[in-house]
């Protein structure tokens, strides 16, 4: 198993566990029985969003999803975003508990704060080194996006 890695966002360390895989839209994935992948936000994503206020899904469990299909929306203390499917397949289950209280996303993002499960081919998901390299390569651009957003609100 790969070692955990750390990505440095300014002074903040985003911990990236080595025991799982990663999607480009900042979700981790662990393989469950029957080819089902469980997804949740990486600590990198959570650092950008801060406290999650509200999570909503625009599709139902059991629906077929395309890669990068819009499936929901999140509102946090810092941000809002649409959410997109990290994998093509069948979205088998949402973490129902989060719909009542999304706190576990912040308190236990790599565990109880998981978001949903998709049955599909996860072979294109990155390993931890790949995700770290992806974050590194995109950090400048990410800052530009964030700054653009911030400036547009001033």
């Amino acid at each position, binding site marked *: 198993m790969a070692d955990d890695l750390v990505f440095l966002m300014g*002074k903040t360390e985003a911990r990236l566990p080595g025991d799982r895989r990663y999607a*480009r*839209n900042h979700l981790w994935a662990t393989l469950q029985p029957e080819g089902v992948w469980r997804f949740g936000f990486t600590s990198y994503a959570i650092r950008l969003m801060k406290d999650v206020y509200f999570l909503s899904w625009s599709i139902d469990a059991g629906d077929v999803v395309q890669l990068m299909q819009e499936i929901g929306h999140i509102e946090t203390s810092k941000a*809002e975003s649409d959410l997109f499917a990290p994998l093509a397949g069948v979205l088998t289950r949402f973490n129902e508990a989060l719909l009542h209280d999304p706190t576990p996303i912040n308190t236990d993002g790599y565990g109880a704060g998981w978001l949903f499960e998709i049955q599909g081919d996860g072979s294109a998901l990155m390993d931890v080194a790949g995700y770290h390299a992806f974050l590194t390569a995109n950090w400048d*651009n990410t800052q530009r996006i964030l700054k*653009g957003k911030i400036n547009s609100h001033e």
Partner: protein
Amino acid sequence: MSRTKLTVVLSQAQGKNPAKRALEESITAALLLENGIDVSIVPSLYDMDANHTGRLYLEGVRGDMVVLSWMYPRATFWMLDRAGIKGHYGENQIAKPTDEDDEETAEPEQSKGIGAVNVPDRKIYCLDLRDHSDHRVYLDEVKRIAAECAAARASKGPLLQLGLMSAEPPASAKTFRPEELLAPTGRRWYPVIDYSRCTNCMECLDFCLFGVYGVDSLDRIVVENQDSCKKGCPACSRVCPEHAIMFPEHKTPAIAGAPVAGPSGLKIDLTKLFGGGDALALAAAERDTELVKDGRAAVGLSVGIPKRQASKPQGPKDDLDKLMDELDALEI
């Protein structure tokens, strides 16, 4: 004494939506009764080409102007600028029902864009007709603007007035009949650049493979061939790192020229990072669709994108900690 009057131009909605027509008619009818206001109706500004009588009329207007349209004010303002109908951005005070008080004022000036050139000393106020369904809101705002402009003229004194008079070509704006102004137009589709945001990075020029963009004599990016643009395709807007490219008729507010990107106006929109995140891939896919329609080969991400991927920080390196602090500072 037309030069002391405020010119109000109403840009009609595309199509024949009766509710929109009714609002347009209520506003123009009410304004016709006002002293000191010249009101005219033209087809949608976006659809008028350079030879349209409505455009010629607008080009002839010299003083302050209010333009009412069914588009975001930013889009309207920069569309006019591209057409050579220039002025300083007049802040309107119509609050949308959901607006917070203090978000509107700072936006146009604070950016690092390259700005407009050859801007005459007058203001252009753009009002969005989608903000309210009550014509009195617009009537009140036009009256407020008329008073504001009159006060500004008075404070400038007579010298400038003389200058204006001598600069004004004789009999320009007066000679068009209403039905000429309203000559039918076809539908058009093209990007509009907000130069208060545009940094002249040329990424749109590199990205678009249809020859829409060019540079002017000052080496500034310009939408050179508007009608070479592919109907419905907003790809270059997604590629623009400064969100400076607008397609006023696109359904997505951020692309159509909405003042802020996030739905609430107070929070950052992280959609780009979370998979809407692949705006570049989406843009490339949209471009490929249009290339294939033209019988050309799809190019995916292989053309016009490398600059961005290899992006080096420009000037001094961004201070990461400061960025995170700025994010923290957004806490309400």
